[in-house]
């Protein structure tokens, strides 16, 4: 696209290849612009933006209570991001994280329930035996719930965006059925939330963090290797770039799309397993469980911002994990209006998505050197070559 303003030509072109530093620079710019924009809003409600931001950073990254919260949230967001990244490598959109997360959570709690976990927090159950079972059930359930849209897409060309969204909403109500009004997983005392997991069945902690946190970091490396170095990863990419070419190369569309959605679903499931069975203070399906479904969409944004790169998703996930907790704390401490934490997050996300989109284009402003005007004089013939 080219526009001419005054003596300048402004050209917007799609970059042939977007380098990693374009993306990184765009993200940093997006953060700065967002902080500036929201800063104006803070000034308007009579708060000092610098104080606000320093409170958020102090709480999210430097405080004893905030740091683990940041790490746990970031892990949840990161795993949700992986569940977008794997299908997207094959050109398919998974926005079914909430459904897959709760499919896994219900399965894990189902295993616990079967072993009599609902009776008391001190139930004598062997964690060594049951925790792995819970993990397997969780991953199986979310992989299957994830695989449904993948299979339908591969086999029948059913639009996966619509199906994953439908499955999300169906799951929200299935969870409601399980934990409300006398549902089987309803808490021992509280209406509208799940029973608390017995101490023996909680995800083990290492250095005060659930092992799932370390697993997520290892998985980001493994996933990168899988996607870039293995034959299957190569096939997924080929399919993503051109389904038709992949078909000629003997890659089965149904199998690939089912597979990427199953893997994606399993990652989302692990996110649910991590948060509801591993994070200290939770250990149940909480009342505001649907918020976690929405929270998992931060993973979607993280995956988009990281441009499908599992390692690059780590800092983005930490940013969202930290800001989401820190902003809520700051809002309480400085007595600001409810919803201002959403404001900060919302602007941050929009700016990051917008700058990512812009980073794909290069903007060139060139001064138009006036083409040497042919100085025609009466009777003189026109100069043929422009370069005289």
């Amino acid at each position, binding site marked *: 696209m080219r526009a001419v303003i005054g003596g300048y030509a402004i050209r917007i072109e799609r970059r042939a290849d977007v380098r990693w530093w374009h993306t990184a620079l765009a993200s940093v710019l997006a953060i700065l612009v967002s902080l500036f924009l929201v800063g104006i809003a803070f000034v308007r409600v009579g708060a000092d933006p610098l104080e606000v931001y320093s409170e958020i950073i102090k709480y999210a990254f430097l405080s004893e209570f905030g740091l683990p919260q940041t790490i746990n949230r970031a892990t949840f967001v990161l795993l949700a991001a992986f569940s977008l990244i794997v299908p997207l490598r094959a050109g398919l*959109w998974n926005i079914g994280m909430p459904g897959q997360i709760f499919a896994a959570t219900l399965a894990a709690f189902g295993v616990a329930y079967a072993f009599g976990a609902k009776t008391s927090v001190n139930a004598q159950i062997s964690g060594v035996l049951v925790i792995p079972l819970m993990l397997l059930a969780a991953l199986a359930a979310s992989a299957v719930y994830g695989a449904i849209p993948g299979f339908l897409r591969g086999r029948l060309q059913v639009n996966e965006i*619509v199906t994953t969204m*439908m499955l999300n909403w169906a799951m929200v*109500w299935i969870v409601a059925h399980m934990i409300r009004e006398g549902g089987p997983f309803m808490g021992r005392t509280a209406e509208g939330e799940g029973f608390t997991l017995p101490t023996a069945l909680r995800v083990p902690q290492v250095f005060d963090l659930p092992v799932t946190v370390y697993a997520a970091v290892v998985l980001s490396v493994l996933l990168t290797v899988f996607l870039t170095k293995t034959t299957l990863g190569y096939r997924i990419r080929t399919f993503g770039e051109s389904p038709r070419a992949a078909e000629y190369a003997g890659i089965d569309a149904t199998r690939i799309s089912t597979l990427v959605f199953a893997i994606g679903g399993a990652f989302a499931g692990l996110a649910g397993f991590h948060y509801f069975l591993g994070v200290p203070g939770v250990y149940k399906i909480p009342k505001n469980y649907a918020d976690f479904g929405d929270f998992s969409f931060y993973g979607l*944004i993280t995956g988009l911002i990281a441009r499908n790169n599992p390692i690059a998703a780590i800092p983005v996930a930490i940013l969202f994990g930290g800001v989401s907790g820190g902003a809520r704390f700051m809002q309480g401490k400085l007595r600001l*209006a409810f*919803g201002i934490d959403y404001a900060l997050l*919302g602007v941050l996300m929009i700016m990051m998505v917008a700058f990512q989109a812009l980073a794909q284009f290069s903007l060139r402003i060139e001064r138009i050197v006036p083409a040497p005007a042919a100085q025609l004089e009466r009777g003189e013939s026109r100069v043929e070559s422009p370069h005289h």
Partner: protein
Amino acid sequence: MSNLLIISLAAAAVFAIAALGELLEQRAGILNVGLEGVMLLSGTFGFIVAKTSGSYLEGFLVAILTGAAVGLLHGFFSITLGSNQVVNGMAIWILGFGLTTYIGYPYTGPLGLTPFPTMGGLPVFFFVALVLAVALWFLLYKTHLGLKLRSVGEDPSVAEASGISVTAMRYLAVLLAGMLVGLAGAVYSLVYNPVWSYNYLQGWGFIALALVFFSLWNPFFVIAGAVFFGVLWQLSLYPELLFPNVFSRYIWRAMPFLITIVVFVLLSTRWFRLRWGATKPEALGVAYQRES
């Protein structure tokens, strides 16, 4: 029973108007999967304006303008910049989800206006949807402009060669579609369920999107599908009207979403796909760059 039908038609109006908008732009080759986001934005802005001004008219106008603006934004990315339409649509959805959450938050609660008038007990906007369906059918199949709109959705380069501006036609399509979807957002937030809450749309935009795929891109099938989903939705809210004491009410709430998937699968049979393939706009979702 007649009660069920009436409230079903009220829900059908929202599904139908949004789906008619999406159908129009899909006919011109533009796929907007961010329908939910457009409806969230337009519904929220319409709600805020109506609540603060006390005027339905202003609320509807703002919603329609918002829908048009967001439609043009999606159009700018999809038509002018030629970037992936699904990515743009997702960005619009996320934008709507994030932006409405914090802009709308202080307005959480009921609209507080006198309920929108009905036509002898029947929902006004269902009739608006019927008129719009006929108008859209007439526009697309009986006018020269409609022929031009459809041709850029079938084969943009041939259309361009025969002197039709693909860019102009597609911008016209996203503008009109945005206005319709914006209207649908306002019908939901001002008339159907005039109470604003966080993420209030509950997936209706995605159901409307599904409806377009079911409809074989035919406006009248959109109306039929919308009535079907309207009934399904209301039955899930009031299952005791037909099936007392079967399942918990939460399982019923999950039904419309699961049945949408089942319908989707049934419609993907070979028989249907042959017809579906025959009516699907050839260039749907494909960016067009003019040779220059």
